[in-house]
């Protein structure tokens, strides 16, 4: 088994996120994810602090590390200046890097995020791109949003906005030269490889699960990971 603890320690977020946890549980008390999911950041900090490779492997292959919302409320209140949210970010990065993220239901969702937020960044220069948010995926947008979408250029003009215009402004078209620079940054810094790695690990998992896998957003694997929702994630009320 690889030395996962050693790999974690190479991540600056792990180094900065964990100094000495006294297991007081303040992070758990303040954590919004702990209110909703079967989640306890105190146990995460305790586990990684032991350096026990088997236990870290369990975290990397499990659902638990994917429950945090990265709000970083834990940072403010920790009396020892630890940041469980940063420990989580390092664990998630390692889980993806090692391909272990496909072992859990919540981890597999990374492909959905890569194919939405991830692709929008390099395609449009925006991390959230309005046109991509459909009512089917986001029914909570409500009727006002639906109305806006049907009349967007007219509505925006009233607000003094030229939709997708060249030049500065709200919802401008980001120039192609700028997008090419962003794509080059992704290539040079490993962002593109990271995206491709998420794809290839997901393809391998789809094969194991016997699910169709291709580039479409509605291929069987995408459909499965988007819809899967086990009953073990939240507490029984």
């Amino acid at each position, binding site marked *: 088994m690889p030395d996962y603890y050693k790999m974690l320690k190479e991540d*600056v977020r792990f180094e900065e996120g964990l100094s000495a946890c006294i297991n007081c549980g303040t992070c758990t008390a303040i954590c*919004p994810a702990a*209110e*909703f999911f079967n989640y306890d950041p105190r146990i995460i900090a305790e586990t990684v602090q032991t350096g026990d490779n088997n236990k870290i492997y369990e975290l990397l292959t499990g659902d638990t590390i994917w429950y945090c*919302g990265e*709000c*970083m*409320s834990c940072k*403010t209140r920790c009396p020892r200046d630890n*940041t469980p949210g940063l420990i989580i970010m390092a664990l998630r*990065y390692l889980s993806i890097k090692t391909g272990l993220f496909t072992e859990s239901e919540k981890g597999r*969702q*990374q492909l*959905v*995020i890569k194919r*939405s*937020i*991830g692709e929008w*960044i390099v395609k449009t*220069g*925006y*991390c*959230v791109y309005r046109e991509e*948010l459909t009512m089917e995926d986001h029914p*909570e*947008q*409500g*009727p*006002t*949003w*639906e*109305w806006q979408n049907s009349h967007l250029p*007219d*509505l*925006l*003009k*009233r*607000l*003094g*906005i030229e939709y997708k215009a060249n*030049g500065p*402004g*709200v*919802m401008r078209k*980001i*120039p192609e*030269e*700028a*997008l090419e*620079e*962003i794509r080059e*940054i992704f*290539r*040079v*810094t*490993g*962002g593109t490889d990271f*995206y491709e790695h*998420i794809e290839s690990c997901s393809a391998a998992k789809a094969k194991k699960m016997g699910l169709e896998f291709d580039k479409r957003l509605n291929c069987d694997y995408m459909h499965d990971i*988007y819809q899967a929702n086990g009953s073990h994630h939240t507490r029984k009320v």
Partner: protein
Amino acid sequence: MIIEGKKRLWQEYQKEIADDNYFFVRSCIRQSFFPGAEVMFLNIMRDQLGKDVYENPGHTTCTGIGYHTDVVPLETTMTVVARQFALMTEAGYKNYAVSCITSFGLYSEILETWKHYPEIEARVRENLKKATGREFRIPENVAHASDIMYKYRFEIAEKAKYKLINQDTGEPLKVVEHIGCHYAKMFPHKGVGGAEYPYVLVGLTEALGGEIVDYPERRHCCGFGFRQYIVKMNRGYSLSCAKTKFESMKPYKPDLILTNCPGCPYFLDRWQYVIGEMEGITYGANGYGIPVFTYEELAALCLGYDPWEIGLQTHQVSCEPLLRKIGVSFDLNRKYLGINGKEIGRPAKPSILMVE
């Protein structure tokens, strides 16, 4: 609440906010969901306060949502941010004004990391040069746009046509201020008033005549949670967080929720509609919701801009109950028109939440 004690705590966390010549970077979420807000920020800065704010159209997302949904590696994010700094450097600016809170938190995190790990900064400089040929200087001042509104709160209040005073009772309006988590929870000294008693929106509210509501879940996250909202099956997390806040603030009967993060007003606005549909619960008076505003929208409203030019019709929760309390004059018949009075239909009504 012991006001004097809290005032003392706020004062421990002061930050320097540049007074002019800003290089402005936009928020992906604010542009998408409340498109009038950034228009108003620039109008107030340029037309009301006479400040120089420059925007380079080639700036992009900072990748913040990608970073916090764990699909964009740290060094990629850092290099995209370095490119933004390069655009600022090339334009001859030193003061960086940020519209987004996720971005603001990320800038704080990256600059702090570079301070402690100069070898990472060196690698990022090398990467940026290799990918784009660009070089950059670190900004002398990084401020969130709400910091700047806070700095000029008294000038804004002096020019204001309306105050946050209930016209019927003469009492100050009750305002819930909601601060985006990444404003100061990670780096308390980067925010006005720190993380526990942020003063940035309190200051603006008080200058405009309003009164702050202190309620138990005041510092609770709105519930974005990045992947927890974006992936549909996780979205119950987001809704539950917002409901926790609404239930906690409801007994204090707030007239308004004021936010400084682009995501928070979106969630606090839309989830009120959803809770109405799912559970038949509403949080304002007479079946309405509690109006949710951004700081630019509120400042613009008090300065006398037309509510429909500010874009308040893009909110799901009706702003009209608040407009009437303040005494803002508005024409309801013009709410859903396009430019030059063009008819562009009107939204359907929710089944529970009252809207106009």
